[in-house]
């Protein structure tokens, strides 16, 4: 005796919907239009106050050929990646522990909230005394600004795990470790990924601030240098590189999210960014 099911086959979509422009195509058209309009405004733009795409591209080519841009990029990426990786590696477990254990929440939660809402840039002068002006202090600044959003998102995620799913663990006598790995962690993954995405924006800001305020270097240094000598087109080059970098990294995290937590986008019915 077995149960029979009449809903065994997925029904194919009945009617073919009208053709819809794919999202990536809409984005591409939007980019072309915006860049095109900007370029068209070029002749009326005073090169001291602003710049336009072809001029920026020319400057980028010149700065790449001279080696200035690749050097600056590499020097920026080192503390950026180190600080971001450290924030992710410490922020996620800290958030998980805080969310899962009431005592830790009560003991340390307040510092996490304080750290998140305090303008940590105010600490930069002090950090310079502690860590100098080079790679270490930049890594620390990026870490500090990224750690808190990553940690808080994970923490909120643990709090948002449906109680009923935790009860499934209880009802089947699941040990704490199994509850953590098979129920809490998968349920929190979308929140962790959202935190990591927010973290990218924070880390990019922290990187530029660090390069402005400590030893002037990297892409931030190029911005300052170009601005001081009124080379507006050159100033735009690192800004646009940072912009593109942040967008690409955000898309990468979104891509990873869809790989490690595919049920989430399927569940909510949209892909996210």
């Amino acid at each position, binding site marked *: *005796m*077995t*149960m*029979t*099911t009449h*809903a*065994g*086959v*997925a029904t194919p979509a009945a009617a073919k919907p009208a053709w819809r422009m794919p999202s990536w195509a809409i984005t591409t058209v939007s980019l072309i239009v915006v860049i095109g309009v900007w370029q068209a405004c070029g002749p009326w733009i005073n090169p001291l106050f602003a710049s336009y795409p072809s001029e920026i591209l020319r400057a980028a080519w010149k700065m790449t050929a001279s080696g200035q841009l690749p050097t600056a990029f590499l020097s920026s990426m080192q503390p950026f990646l180190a600080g971001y990786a450290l924030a992710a590696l410490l922020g996620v477990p800290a958030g998980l522990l805080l969310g899962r254990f009431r005592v830790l929440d009560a003991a340390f939660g307040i510092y996490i909230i304080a750290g998140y809402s305090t303008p940590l840039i105010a600490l930069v002068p002090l950090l310079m005394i502690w860590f100098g002006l080079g790679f270490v202090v930049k890594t620390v600044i990026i870490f500090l600004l990224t750690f808190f959003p990553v940690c808080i998102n994970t923490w909120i995620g643990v709090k948002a795990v449906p109680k*009923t*799913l935790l*009860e*499934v*663990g*209880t*009802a*089947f*006598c*699941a*040990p704490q470790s*199994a509850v953590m790995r*098979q*129920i809490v962690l*998968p*349920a929190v993954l979308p929140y962790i990924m959202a935190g990591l995405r927010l973290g990218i924006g924070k880390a990019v800001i922290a990187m530029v601030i660090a390069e402005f305020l400590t030893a002037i270097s990297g892409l931030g240094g190029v911005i300052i240098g170009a601005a001081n000598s009124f080379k507006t087109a050159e100033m735009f080059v690192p800004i646009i590189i940072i912009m593109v970098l942040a967008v690409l990294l955000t898309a990468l995290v979104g891509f990873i999210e869809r790989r490690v*937590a595919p*049920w989430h986008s*399927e*569940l909510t019915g949209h892909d996210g960014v």
Partner: protein
Amino acid sequence: MPHVQIQNVSKTFGLKVNGQVLTARALDGVSFDVEQGEIVALAGPSGCGKTTALRIIMGLESASSGAVMVGDRAIAGCGHDRGMVFQHAELLPWKSVLENVKFGLAMKGVPKSELDGMAARYVELVGLSDAKDRRPHQLSGGMKQRVGIARALAIDPEVLLMDEPFGALDSQTRETLQMELLAIHERTRKTIIFVTHDLDEAVLLADRVVVLNAGRVQEIIPIDLGRPRRDIRAVQTNPEFMRKRTMIWEALHVAAPAEDRLSIRRSA
């Protein structure tokens, strides 16, 4: 000796309303026995404490006083001697049908090498072999609840606890699953405690119906319909069916509505 004994179980909890702490009594000295292989339905209006009683039997909540015995042991928390089917199935969304059934088995300590085979048998039992690799969001409500039943049955519990498992399903799917549950019971002779607010369902499935009202046992009504009950139409047109349905209805309506009787008192 009865298989499950609920002995004088009470449950109170604090409620904060407008800054005042009120003590609500969800269960008040509830006692009943369940015999080996019997289906007992806990019926009553919402708020009567039937789900709380089931959750206490599962060990998801603790009783304020009283005891629950399964066999000769008093329960303390969860145990693989009891299997729970939740109201909304509560499948883990990141696991496939097969993996969801394996979850319970793995928690019971079944060796890894046997997990796949055992889980597949129970997935087949509930008729979902073709859908075993689907995730819960790709299943209909009825299919989800089949997985919930498979997950609970797979750990081979002595007692199956079901919390309004068919309450959220359309009437056709509900009837199908009711018949299949009866068929599974006929074969496995599991002891089943079934919570429902649906009087027809209570009479159709149960050997005895425990009518709860305002946290108290109002009446325990035996259903003399015999088994097997394979033909739902025949059972429902049986005079005994109508008689017992009326008895339960009257038991519920003799008493004041649950809301009025829910003994809420201010504590100091």
